[in-house]
């Protein structure tokens, strides 16, 4: 990238971060987050509308299609910021859906009028988007699970044998079972029985990659903020007549957490930069897998330690560290667990000669 292009990107990343922080202040609006937890649909449709006004679900969409045609660096910066603020609005799945829609469907999604979410998964621990679902003759039959925030969706993009289809929430033969998630949101299990649909032309497999990388970035925001909270606590909480952050064993643990956050940031940013620079195929898969594997493990480690270092108070629901832990619990294995991505990395990254 030339110096000028790099400056442009830095500027647009800064703009994105600023506008995201305005809507989802890092760690500053847990009252909103708490109020939405364990309530349907698990997020705020009004805030979602604002996000759409900001153009976020269309960040990666071409300008001709109503998007902003920005890159992965901007998308990851946005996702990180939302993670720091624990925003529950389904930006990542909706952005994934945006890559699969066109025309009026896409316009309605981007405008915030019609929330479409992807339904691609049939088994845990898998990135297979086809499974046993059959799409044929304008009908879908099958079962999709782990659809995040399904409670708030107006329609679903469904992948299966026979391609990709759009199904309205109220379509006959579609039943939705909701399960609550630890972060206060929900997973939908969708059962289709000869459910009418319209065919789409997108590529679900390709759409998974930005979602996986953005989830890594979101987890980066989660861990970064959980770590910051913890650092504050170490500086202010006193035991034995001194701040607990003056105890060397805790200092060294904090240093180790800082290292995990730094490694995650380096991995996410380098994956985003690689994809923006045109990386495709195995190279891109390896970059995304590296970022997601590190982010998943590091987010769990940092948020677990946030609880431990907060002591008893960390185990209460009214303290904030638990919110970050629960978010990490939900997102770490979404779009592929650390183990899955390690294996995918090994399958896609050429081993070196030196």
């Amino acid at each position, binding site marked *: 990238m030339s110096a000028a292009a790099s400056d442009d990107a830095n500027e647009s990343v800064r703009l994105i971060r600023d506008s995201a922080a305005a809507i989802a202040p890092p760690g500053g609006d847990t009252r909103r987050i708490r109020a939405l937890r364990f309530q349907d649909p698990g997020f705020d449709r009004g805030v979602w509308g604002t996000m759409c006004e900001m153009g976020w679900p269309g960040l990666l969409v071409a300008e001709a299609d109503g998007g902003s045609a920005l890159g992965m660096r901007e998308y990851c910066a946005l996702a990180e910021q939302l993670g720091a603020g624990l925003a529950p609005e389904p930006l990542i799945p909706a952005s994934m859906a945006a890559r699969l829609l066109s025309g009026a469907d896409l316009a309605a999604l981007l405008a915030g009028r019609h929330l479409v979410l992807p339904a691609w998964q049939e088994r845990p621990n898998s990135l297979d988007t086809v499974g046993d679902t059959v799409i044929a003759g304008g009908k879908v039959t099958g079962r999709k699970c782990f659809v995040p925030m399904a409670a708030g969706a107006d329609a679903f993009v469904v992948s299966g044998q026979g391609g990709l289809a759009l199904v309205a929430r109220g379509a006959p033969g579609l039943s939705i079972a909701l*399960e609550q998630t630890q972060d206060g949101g929900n997973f939908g299990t969708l059962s289709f029985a000869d459910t009418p649909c319209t065919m789409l032309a997108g590529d679900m497999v390709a759409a998974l990659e930005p979602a996986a990388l953005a989830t890594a970035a979101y987890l980066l925001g989660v861990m970064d903020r959980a770590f910051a909270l913890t650092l504050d606590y170490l500086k202010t909480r006193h035991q034995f007549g001194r701040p607990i952050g003056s105890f060397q064993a805790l200092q060294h643990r904090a240093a180790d957490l800082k290292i995990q956050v730094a490694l995650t940031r380096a991995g996410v940013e380098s994956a985003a930069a690689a994809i923006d620079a045109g990386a495709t195929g195995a190279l891109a898969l390896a970059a995304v897998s590296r970022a997601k594997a590190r982010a998943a493990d590091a987010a769990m480690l940092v948020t*677990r330690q946030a609880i431990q270092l907060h002591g*008893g108070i*960390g*185990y209460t*629901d009214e303290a904030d560290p638990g919110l970050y832990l629960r978010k990490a619990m939900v997102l770490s*294995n979404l779009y592929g667990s650390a183990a899955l991505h390690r294996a995918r990395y090994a399958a896609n990254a050429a081993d070196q000669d030196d």
Partner: protein
Amino acid sequence: MTQDLNALTEAEFRIVVRKFLADNYPENLRNPPKRLHWRDNQVWYHTLARTGWLCPGWPVEHGGMGLSAARQIALTEEFERHGVARTNDHGIVMVGPLLIQYGTQAQRDFFLPKILAGEHIWCQGYSEPGAGSDLAGLRTSAVSDGDHWVVNGQKIWTTLANDANWIFLLVRTDPAAKKQEGISFLLVPMDTPGITVRPIINLELHDEFCEVFFDNVRVPKANTVGEVNKGWTVAKNLLGFERIFLGSPKLSAHALGRLRALADRMGAWDDAAFTDRYTALRLELEDLKSLHATFVDIVRRGEALGPDVSMLKVIQTELFQKITDAMMDIAGENAGLLEPMEGNRELHPSGLFIQARPSTIYGGSNEIQRNILSKNVLGLPG
């Protein structure tokens, strides 16, 4: 009966216990996912009281079963094997033995029968918001006023205070004394005016712990256990047993069984990396069992436990966490569910993962245990 039980071989004794549980324990209370409240376990509690099985460790002359240390361990193991829920047991395991050792005759005469009858349900007021790991830094004060103490302050992490009608308390009776001195041990009815209980919702979304506030609470001085300003000695006595209890391998053994069930469900055995990890956890559990047994032998011989018992607490709680970490890693997207998978209590990785979190914090955090090990066992300076 109690005479007979101590005379039995261990195998015979276990058979008796198993039969007792099969005959008496409510089926729907086996292996509850969260700590039970009094409303749920009082029937079982009263069954124990009625049958004379409530206080296995108390001497017969005080109304207990008078079981030997070895029999008590076997009893606990059988209870755990059967999935018996923990009761509101602070009166049984803490207050009773304490009064037998440190109480006045009047205190014993009044309190022990009430505990045995299931009439007094106790809770423990040690920790404070500013004194968690640094327990001796507590600030709840008791000021002398004639034949009463006037207590002001706040306790926290008081387990099931919302079920209890009595609380035992550490309070500062001499504010000028050095930290561990000037502390006294009080017994207080929860219905005394000025006491307020506020449940704390924990990460399990359960109100197991409470805050207890004291606003000019008047406590008769007759309710002081041991000498005034010597309460720390009384309290410390209770901490040794806590560590061998917290270091019992049963919790990790239970969790490992759940990991096995989850691995079956998730098809994780096909992954050799998981299998090796599982075996390493199993080996650690078996080694913990061997180490635990050496401490149990000390108790069996009637000898005092040294500070090295802190090792058990560290190993057990961190193993428990490692096992639940492994659950999260193989559970896939199920790791994010709030409730058990497929409605099956046995398959609740996220629940057990969260339940494992506080084990390294309570009972003296593992940081405190490592301080104890380095200073009191290894003799490291400072």
